[in-house]
């Protein structure tokens, strides 16, 4: 546990040692702002609603959230493998799962920091009019779970390769399939459609951002996270296959 925290601490500060973190952060906040205020027609609706805000995170045309998560996680393991630092890390007295959890924790802390920064948007809106904070709380919980799932997928992708670029794109491919799969349900027979819908990130996220916190949605995201992290741990263990 102590070692997990040491790794998380190192990784978290490493984000701020490179310009990439600041670029990703700025682009992300700008994109969400633009998508929220302009693309979702916030000023046209003329209503103090944050529905458009939460949709901005996974706008079908500009899926900034999966892109953000892939950029944040791509180097976590891949870069260690490429630089060879991986060898020192895994020959320290540390379990593979502790390494994965430490890296994941760092990415989660970065996500949390970013989400805290986005609080500026709802606070700005609430200054203009009375607002229902219930859906916002649910929405943020949804964002945290959705983001955490994307990050877990990104970490898995990073653990499978030693090239950041490959990690980035494979994370995006996996994330997009969970994201866009809901659009296919219209063309599928009802029996499959309900399963496909259940596997869709959009479906569960929409439930949460409506302010309805259902344990089934929470459980769905948690299982995705656990599965992806287990996969990443397995990928580290692969070096031990005889």
């Amino acid at each position, binding site marked *: 546990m102590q*070692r997990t925290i040491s790794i998380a601490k*190192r990784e978290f500060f490493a984000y701020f040692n490179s310009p990439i973190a600041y670029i990703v952060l700025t682009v992300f906040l700008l994109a969400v702002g633009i998508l929220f205020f302009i693309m979702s027609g916030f000023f046209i609706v003329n209503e103090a609603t944050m529905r458009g805000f939460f949709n901005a995170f996974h706008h079908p045309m500009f899926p900034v959230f999966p892109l953000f998560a892939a950029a944040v996680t791509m180097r976590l393991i891949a870069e260690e493998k490429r630089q060879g630092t991986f060898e020192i890390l895994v020959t*320290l*007295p540390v379990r593979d799962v502790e390494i994965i959890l430490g890296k994941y924790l760092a990415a989660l802390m970065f996500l949390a920091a970013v989400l805290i920064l986005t609080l500026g948007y709802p606070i700005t809106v609430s200054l203009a009019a009375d607002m229902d904070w219930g859906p916002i709380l649910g929405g943020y919980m949804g964002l945290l779970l959705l983001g955490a799932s994307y990050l877990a997928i990104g970490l898995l992708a990073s653990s499978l390769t030693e090239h950041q670029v490959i990690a980035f794109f494979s994370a995006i491919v996996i994330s997009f399939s969970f994201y866009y799969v809901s659009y296919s349900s219209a063309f599928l027979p009802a029996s499959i459609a309900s399963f496909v819908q259940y596997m869709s990130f959009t479906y569960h996220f929409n439930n949460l951002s409506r302010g309805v916190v259902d344990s089934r949605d929470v459980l769905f995201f948690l299982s995705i996270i656990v599965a992806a992290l287990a996969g990443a741990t397995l990928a580290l263990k692969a070096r031990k296959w005889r």
Partner: protein
Amino acid sequence: MVQSRETMIEVTDVTKFYGPIKAVDSLSFRLERGEVLGFLGPNGAGKTTTMKILTCYMPPTTGRATVKGKDVFRDALEVRSLIGYLPENAPLYHDMTAREYLRFIAEMRQIDTRDIVRRIKHVTRTCGLDGVLDRMIGTLSKGYRQRVGLAQAMIHDPEILILDEPTSGLDPNQIVEMRNLIKEIGKRKTVILSTHNLSEVQASATRVLIIHRGKIVTDASTDQIQKTRGRNRYEVVLAAEDGSREELRKALRGIDEVEKVDAIDVKEEDVWSFEILGKTDADLRRPIFKFAVDGGHTLLELKPEKASLESVFMELTRE
């Protein structure tokens, strides 16, 4: 210093395959406390693979390796805490200062928080890192990075150090400094040191293990290796009374304990030069002199050459 006979590392019949490629081929050796083992071999001989097995990076395909009786696969965490490891090229986090990095490794090794500062101070002194502790590792020279790598491996005061080519890529001055450092460390610790630089082994190791194509070809102490494997070589220049060069060569070949005689071209007339290789390390100076006198030849030069580790190595690992 008390030399208790305690087996620190035992490798038994270890084989490692990378897919169809056999990197290490039923390797067995044992290392006692206090030994400094020079692990020698051409590139791709299996040195790094063996080290990766000993540091629990990966298990052997078959066979068993133990460190202080602990299996590298089953008791990996315990083994790792006994070992300090410096991989090839000292891969470190370039975005940290040396101090931050050492602190991170110390934390990972669960060194008591109160001891961390003291340990960092200690390895800083041992590895000569004064003045660069607060510089980014990425901005340090190769030599200093290698030292930070060594400091990292020693931060928990391990009983065993495994160093993979600690001097590769260093300039001659840095190589000498690193060697002295390893020699100093070797007085108190059990060290495995891989290299393809032979003088390095002569300088810092007490024992040499030469491997070639995954197999051990020599396992001996540094002195021993030159005595037993080091057959003597003589350069002889004769002014011959009569006979052709070939006849003379055959005659020299007839001397007891002579393995091989090669003729060397000489510009002077009626002067012949030969390179004579002895079968053992027996002294051939007298027989050669006697040969010259008996044959009525004039011995112009007789130059014995002690076989260096270099020639032993080349002979053993020739394709």
